């Protein structure tokens, strides 16, 4: 049974990278469509809309970070690969906040970014304010990232 520990741990790491990346890919794509629409009419707004497009791209990076830390802890990237069933399950659960929250926050952030791009299209001087609405969503992605990292490193120090 203990041999399944590594499977769960790896599944958690992959989920974090997968859903974070998937969410960001969709989100940046949606933002890109809106940005392209604005640029077609007014190319001078490129810099501003590019930043707004890229805001939901961070979730993919966070997912990668969580996956990387998990892989280091479970010995896939070197070191001891001795992961018990319970520990593997705990690693899996530790990765879940990142996997789930990163995906949904990326999509929601994209919607906020698209709305902000619409603001910039009409009032470029409000770029700073518009960006804040989208940036607010980032808070919850960071909280999920934080809790996942704390849990993963915590599980590593438990002897079970």
């Amino acid at each position, binding site marked *: 049974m203990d041999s399944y520990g590594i499977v769960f741990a790896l599944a958690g790491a992959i989920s974090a990278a997968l859903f974070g990346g998937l969410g960001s890919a969709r989100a940046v794509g949606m933002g890109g469509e809106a940005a392209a629409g*604005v640029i077609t009419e*007014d190319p001078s707004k490129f810099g501003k809309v590019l930043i707004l497009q890229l805001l939901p791209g961070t979730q993919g990076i966070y997912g990668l970070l969580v996956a990387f830390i998990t892989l280091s802890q479970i010995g896939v990237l070197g070191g001891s690969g001795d992961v018990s069933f319970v520990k593997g399950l705990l690693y899996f659960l530790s990765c879940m906040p990142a996997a789930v929250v990163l995906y949904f926050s990326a999509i929601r952030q994209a919607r906020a970014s698209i709305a902000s791009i*619409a603001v910039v299209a009409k009032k470029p001087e409000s770029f700073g304010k518009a960006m804040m609405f989208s940036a607010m969503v980032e808070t919850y992605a960071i909280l999920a990232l934080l809790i996942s990292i704390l849990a993963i490193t915590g599980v590593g120090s438990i002897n079970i």
Partner: protein
Amino acid sequence: MTENMHIYAVARIRSRELDLLGESVINQLVDCNKFEECMKILFDKGWGKSGFEEADELLAAESDKTWDLIGEIVEDMSIFDTLLLENDYHNLKAAIKQAYMNRDIEKIYFSRGTVKREIIFNAVKEHNFSVLDEKMGKCAEEAYQVLFHTGDGQLCDVIIDKSAMEAIYEKAAESGNEVLIDYAELKVASADIKIALRCSRTGKSREFTERAIAECATLDIKSLIDSSAAGENELFEYLLSTPYAEVINEIKKSPAAFEIWFDNLLIKHIKPQKYNSFTMSPLAAYILARENEIKTVRIILLGKLNRLSDSSIRERLRNMYV
């Protein structure tokens, strides 16, 4: 998923909304002393294609620009059929009347529609309505027979107008889009109230009114027809129980005030789309806003050409989208 289909298009429309004429420009146009000054302001705002058009050409060019833009950013233009169906039925009416009078009349057709005007023209000319869709074909046959056998142009108009309203209503419901559904509802309701009022004032038979009025959700057709047959005051009494109670005052003012009230209500309904970045609703709202803008500019230009006073022109102005 469908709400993410028009992100690019809506973003482009957001930028284009900056070019829509606001109240200040409209006031500036009304304040002009001469027609030529108005034209100059419009040309400066980028209206027209060559910068040397006559008023009619200028307005037609602006309508073309709107539809060309929408055609450029939306793959499937059929989603906006609701907004073009009225042109089809107008062209059908024109073609039947032209065939009946048996002479060529220029500039009576709309160039844009869901069916090419040549197809409608030939269908009427050859008396072969199978090339049209079932609903339009059936209505065309009935209107054709009525006009050619009785010469009753009014009944011919009534048949086509009712069919047009039904087609618009059905198409909007099919689209499932809030803006188009709202547009169709107001379009049919305003046409119904106008018909009920005219029938009441001219003492038309109940059968005639029934034949002219189309179904819609905000009006109870039976009550509308009953009250119309009973008299104008009864009609007003019925309208008090509908969402159009406020229009009674406008009806009492003038027919133009009635039209303005409905146009302003539509603009009020579509205004929230300025803050919506998803779905096709902002695109439909933009088309309606442009049509409203063109209509308003037409009123101003005609007013200036006919030397109407500024106050007379202002009375006829619509609220703007931006």
